[in-house]
């Protein structure tokens, strides 16, 4: 399964071993891991909860991975996103892309992350000393996605 939504943590070594298993044509693996910071918008973050839209989340991530596969010559791709309660330093998201050469893997990994940030229905709620607050979307995320628009 190229897309997984789960509450529990993931093990990078194990996931990469599975992803490249028996495929000797793979020459490059690009990996991105997003983690929880203890500071956001000037406030200390004690904990975080991730909400999502079950069903739509999986669909949108599959669609993003399919778009990446259409655009670049990839061997495979994997997206794991955690939901539920998380603490600073916890892993949130893993994007791993395999290809024959590094160019495709790097580009596709970044593309998948930029699209995920803008299109996949996840929402972060932070627990700060001033109380709980929903994280605001960033304009820079829209800009990051826009640069992939086909010319």
């Amino acid at each position, binding site marked *: 399964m190229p897309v997984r939504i789960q509450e529990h943590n993931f093990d990078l070594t194990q996931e990469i071993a599975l992803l490249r298993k028996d495929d000797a044509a793979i020459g490059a693996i690009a990996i991105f891991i997003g983690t929880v910071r203890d500071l956001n918008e000037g406030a200390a973050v004690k904990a975080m909860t991730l909400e999502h*839209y079950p069903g739509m989340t999986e*669909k*949108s991530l599959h669609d993003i991975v399919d778009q990446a596969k259409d655009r670049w010559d990839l061997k495979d791709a994997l997206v794991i996103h955690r939901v539920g309660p998380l603490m600073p330093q916890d892993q949130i*998201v893993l994007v791993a892309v395999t290809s024959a050469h590094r160019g495709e893997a790097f580009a596709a990994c970044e593309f998948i*992350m930029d699209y995920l940030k803008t*299109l996949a229905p*996840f929402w972060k709620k932070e627990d700060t000393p001033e109380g709980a607050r*929903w994280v*605001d979307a960033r304009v820079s995320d829209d800009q990051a996605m826009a640069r992939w628009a086909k010319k």
Partner: protein
Amino acid sequence: MKLHLRFFASIRESLGLAHEDIDLPENIKTIDDLRSHLITRGHPWTETLAKDKVLRCALNQQMVSVETALIDGAEVAFFPPVTGG
């Protein structure tokens, strides 16, 4: 037209509602019509779905623009801009 409405994150919290089945009058044709219709319900709908607030909507679990035509029996969701990753 019958729809299944769903609300997420800050929208769900401020409405105090996660989902609802609704039967709409015939003049409601688009996502934007639906939003205007819900706004007329008064507090907390009026301020939560106010047109000056940036919201995203999905029709049958696909993100769509406000001009999109509704489909009978569809699932329609309202939520704030996404913040995953």
